[in-house]
């Protein structure tokens, strides 16, 4: 698997080159949110606002009213937890085209509960006028700016940084409001199981589905990069073809995020299908490595295998060795400014 480094840092410099109205706002996390290259390339368009997120959000609303395109960069928690009222009233209410890049989603940070955005999608999805997207690999990081370009209102981007795998064909860009088909064992027909995954869980799901499909389970796997507006019709169609049921998998609490979106679709359509939601179950998380936390909270490939076995009332004898190798990121690497 191809692993790329600091994809957003490079892509932003390229993308913003001939877009003079793009202003990048930083809250003292310039290298940690990969805007250091932008700062070096276009110092005049980089605005340092310090550890003061409430002002940053309202200030961005003011810039947008005057025709600029503010790109807010900080850890996700500091956008929606520290400055929610400011985001709601200064940005979302007037439907201003502010782009918010929230880093360290869910358990990707060893920084503990203060740094781990575990309910951001739920908060953002319920906010009127907000568009909510999440990247799952390098291809999506490279193409998310184009995908959201032209959205007239605010966009929240759940972002990845550092070393990121390329899971999807580099020639197939992210598309707003579309589900990405990762695997489909019976196009147009019935399958055993439909899986919806988002963010870093898609890589885990791909490891698990590989082993499950070898054991004869037919699967339709869809990657979700647009949480809102959710591709309800396409999701419904995928749910309807699943013989045993549906599993959602997200690096987020199971309330309000992807699992809830799928549940809403199923319930509103009145389709009698089982839904298993993999994610954090009404709990905060602590500081530890990503692979450790994924295992501890059941967000990894073995968790998907276990839930599939339950749903299908089967045993597949899949050991950890049968799953593709776990990718372990170094705590300290050149791709990250700090270990957080």
């Amino acid at each position, binding site marked *: 698997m191809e692993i790329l480094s600091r994809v957003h840092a490079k892509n932003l410099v390229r993308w913003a080159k001939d877009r003079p109205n793009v202003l990048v706002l930083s809250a003292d996390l310039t290298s940690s949110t990969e805007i250091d290259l932008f700062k070096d390339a276009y110092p005049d368009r980089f605005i340092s606002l*310090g550890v*003061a997120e409430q002002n940053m959000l309202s*200030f961005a609303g*003011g810039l947008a*009213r*005057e*025709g600029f395109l503010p790109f807010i960069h900080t850890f996700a928690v500091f956008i929606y937890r520290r400055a929610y009222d400011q985001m709601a009233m*200064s940005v979302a*209410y*007037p439907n201003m085209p502010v782009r918010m890049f929230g880093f360290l989603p869910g358990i990707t940070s060893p920084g503990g509960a203060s740094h781990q955005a575990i309910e951001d999608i739920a908060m953002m999805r319920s906010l009127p006028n907000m568009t909510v997207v999440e990247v799952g690999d390098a291809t999506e990081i490279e193409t998310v700016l184009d995908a959201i370009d032209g959205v007239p209102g605010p966009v929240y981007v759940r972002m990845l940084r550092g070393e990121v795998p390329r899971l999807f064909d580099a020639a197939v860009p992210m598309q707003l409001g579309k589900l990405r088909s990762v695997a489909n064992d019976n196009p147009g027909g019935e399958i055993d199981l439909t899986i919806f995954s988002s963010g870093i869980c898609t890589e885990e799901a791909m490891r698990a589905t590989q082993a499950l499909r070898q054991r004869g389970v037919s699967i339709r796997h869809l990657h979700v990069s647009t949480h809102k507006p959710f591709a309800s019709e396409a999701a419904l169609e995928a749910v309807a073809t699943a013989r045993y049921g549906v599993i959602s998998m997200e690096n987020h609490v199971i309330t309000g995020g992807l699992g809830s979106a799928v549940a809403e679709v199923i319930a509103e359509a009145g389709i009698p299908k089982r839904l298993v939601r993999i994610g954090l179950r009404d709990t905060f998380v602590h500081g530890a490595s990503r692979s450790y936390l994924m295992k501890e909270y059941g967000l990894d490939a073995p968790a998907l295998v276990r839930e599939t076995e339950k749903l299908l009332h089967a045993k597949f004898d899949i050991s950890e060795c049968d799953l593709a190798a776990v990718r372990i990121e170094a705590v300290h690497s050149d791709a990250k400014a700090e270990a957080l």
Partner: protein
Amino acid sequence: MATQDIAELELRPTASTSWQDEARRVARGIRRRVLEHVILNKGGYLSQACSAGEILATLYTNVLNLGRVKPLLPGPFPGVPGPNYRGLSPGTALHGPRAPHFDRFILSPSQYALILYAALVEVGRMAPEGLLDFNRDGGTVEMIGAEHSPGHELMSGSLGQGLSQASGIAYARKRKGETGRVWVLMSDGEFQSGQTWETLQAMSFHKIDNLGIYVDVNGHQCDGRMNQTMNIEPLEKRVEAFGCRTFRVDGHDLDALAAPAHLLPDGRPIVVLAMTDTCREMEILRVNAPKFHYFRFKDEAEYRRYQDLLASL
């Protein structure tokens, strides 16, 4: 010492009738119209008209450089911004056409909305009948103003957010080379909020000197006296320490209020602390001390006393 001797400052040349006479008329009119509505609605934000009458009168007759506009009638509620509606708030129309050289005025505490509406009528920007829409369902002349309300540019009802947004607008205008300035009216209660200080810090750091702030320092808030609710003094020293060009003036003295607005920008944001009286021109309000934030009549007799006061204004 950052506070300048304002007597030395040069005022903008005045027309044949002095702007001060006009401002005095506007301030009287604001108080009269606000009292009229408080009597009509059996309550309302009254003390803010007493404290901020001269500030708004000075802003509209001397400080703000706005485009001309005929007296307008506020339209019906246009809906909240969303997929089908975004852009200039209809409330901005009363401030005339937008142009790079024109100023902007942003009211931060939307609880002052009625005082602003009254001011707009007095300076001929809103048709007097517009006030009849005050607090009427389906209208825009809301009790706590919103983005679509007359004279409002943005959502500012959540205290502390008005200045932040205005500073973004001012920064953007400076970047675009626009010469018009941005003026913000704030309440002193907003200086209890952390966001206000975050903003002053950033304005000072980024030299946002095309923005001026008038603060109605009336010393009162919803719960009563500010120094018994949450002290903000010494406000002048605190604001100055954040790098602002600070002026502490008598908030009912027209010349003192106007003078700082005519200084040439020097890199620092301007903050005018207007020391005001919550009962100015309405002595009978004083028995309500220390609760001035929202006024209600206690009995019929008091109601009649205020009707008499209105007749005398």
